[in-house]
């Protein structure tokens, strides 16, 4: 019996397992190792922070119920991956051998890398979002600064989106005139790509969101309530929201599979790890210079499932990842933009519309069924 082992059962791991299960590869076991029995929909953290979602059971499901019955799920933590001997060591003491390995362990946040980090809030975990919501509810006016504490981070539009949604939140609370919203952009623009940056800048100007170019957070002085940038500037705040720095999963670092912060170097098209053609990495775990986004994990998962399937039936794997990314940015007031691009084709200037707001709602809704099952 051959074994396909998938370490990490988040977005990428769940899609790849379900697509492979549907291929019905004979005499092959598909095993997912995930360190939690729950699967959480991370894009909803922003809405939890803003109080649009309070009931957390709506953004969480049991991983077992999301996986095809033919997939074996082990709730366990991978401690070490030995690619030379094709083995994965688990916390329970179990040891798994594999014929194919997919590493989809995502990323983890490391706010402690920024001096003074305790003074900042974030929405990058459910707990962080919950605390930020309580703080926002008590906030009655002053300067709110939203910035970035380290690169790379998940979902590049998230901080700009959060600023627009804060405008919506304070407007609904009828205290918008008492709040100054400041967006600390790490770049000379509001967004990495010029065409998209223009749309976001226009939206921010319309909403009177002050944006500061080239402000990468370096440290926080909690006593004086001042945030300092790598580029030598400072801003005084009353409430600070910082996207924390991210690193690859601990198991990747411990197994010495990652570079520059635990990101796994893979071929940008085949997603194979170095010379190990049976080892793949997908999603946030890789060091590819593309967005760390659920859509990327989803598209890459489908490519890897196709490649492994081809190999098992004796065909040369030909499926390749073209760098496709899709994402939405919600601006509040039922308006959003949508972007789609790949390695070859940059995004076009998007327009904020109700249609894309509905698009984002559809993705939120169909995440659990169509996306995780790998049907779309």
């Amino acid at each position: 019996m051959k074994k396909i082992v998938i370490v990490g059962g988040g977005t990428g791991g769940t899609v790849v397992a379900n697509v492979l299960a549907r291929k019905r590869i004979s005499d092959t076991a598909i095993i997912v190792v995930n360190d939690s029995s729950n699967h959480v929909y991370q894009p909803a953290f922003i809405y939890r922070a803003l109080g649009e979602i309070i009931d957390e059971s709506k953004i969480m499901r049991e991983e077992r119920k999301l996986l095809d019955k033919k997939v074996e799920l082990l709730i366990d933590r991978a401690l070490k991956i030995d690619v030379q001997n094709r083995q994965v060591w688990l916390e329970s003491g179990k040891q798994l051998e594999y014929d194919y390995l997919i590493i989809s362990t995502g990323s983890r946040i490391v706010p402690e890398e920024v001096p003074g980090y305790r003074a900042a809030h974030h929405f990058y975990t459910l707990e962080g979002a919950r605390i930020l919501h309580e703080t926002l509810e008590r906030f009655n006016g002053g300067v709110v600064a939203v910035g970035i504490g380290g690169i790379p981070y998940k979902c590049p539009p998230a901080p700009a989106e959060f600023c627009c949604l804060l405008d919506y939140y304070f407007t609904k609370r009828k205290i918008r005139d008492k709040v100054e919203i400041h967006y600390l952009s790490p770049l000379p623009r509001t967004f990495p790509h010029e065409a998209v940056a223009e749309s976001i800048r226009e939206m921010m100007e319309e909403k009177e969101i002050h944006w500061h170019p080239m402000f990468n957070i370096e440290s926080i002085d909690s006593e004086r309530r001042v945030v300092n940038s790598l580029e030598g500037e400072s801003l005084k705040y009353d409430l600070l929201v910082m996207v924390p720095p991210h690193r690859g999963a601990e198991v990747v670092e411990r197994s010495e599979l990652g570079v520059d912060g635990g990101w796994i170097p893979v071929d940008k098209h085949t997603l194979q790890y170095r010379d190990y053609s049976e080892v793949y990495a997908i999603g946030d775990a890789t060091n590819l210079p593309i967005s760390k986004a659920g859509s990327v994990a989803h598209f890459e998962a489908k490519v890897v499932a196709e490649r492994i399937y081809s190999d098992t039936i004796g065909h040369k794997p030909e499926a390749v990842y073209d760098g496709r990314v899709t994402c939405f940015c919600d601006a509040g007031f039922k308006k959003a933009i949508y972007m789609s691009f790949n390695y070859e084709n940059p995004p076009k200037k998007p327009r904020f519309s109700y249609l894309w707001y509905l698009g984002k709602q559809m993705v939120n809704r169909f995440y659990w069924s169509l996306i995780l099952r790998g049907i779309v």
Partner: protein
Amino acid sequence: MSSGEHKVSKIVDARGSHCPGPLMELIKAIKNAQVGEVISVYSTDSGSKTDIPLWVNKAGHELIGVYERDGYTEFIVKKAR
């Protein structure tokens, strides 16, 4: 690899990156580098030609050179502080 008398210690191949984009990749590399290290960034993004020099200047690093290569631009940057 070497560029003039500067020895490049790291190459950041950000060709095809639109988001987060080559400048974000450079900032990440600079954060991880030691003072004095030289980093080379490959970019196919049209915005890099204004972005990278602007950021390098503001952040107090040194732009050693910008070279047009075959289908991409190479930026060589030294971490100065």
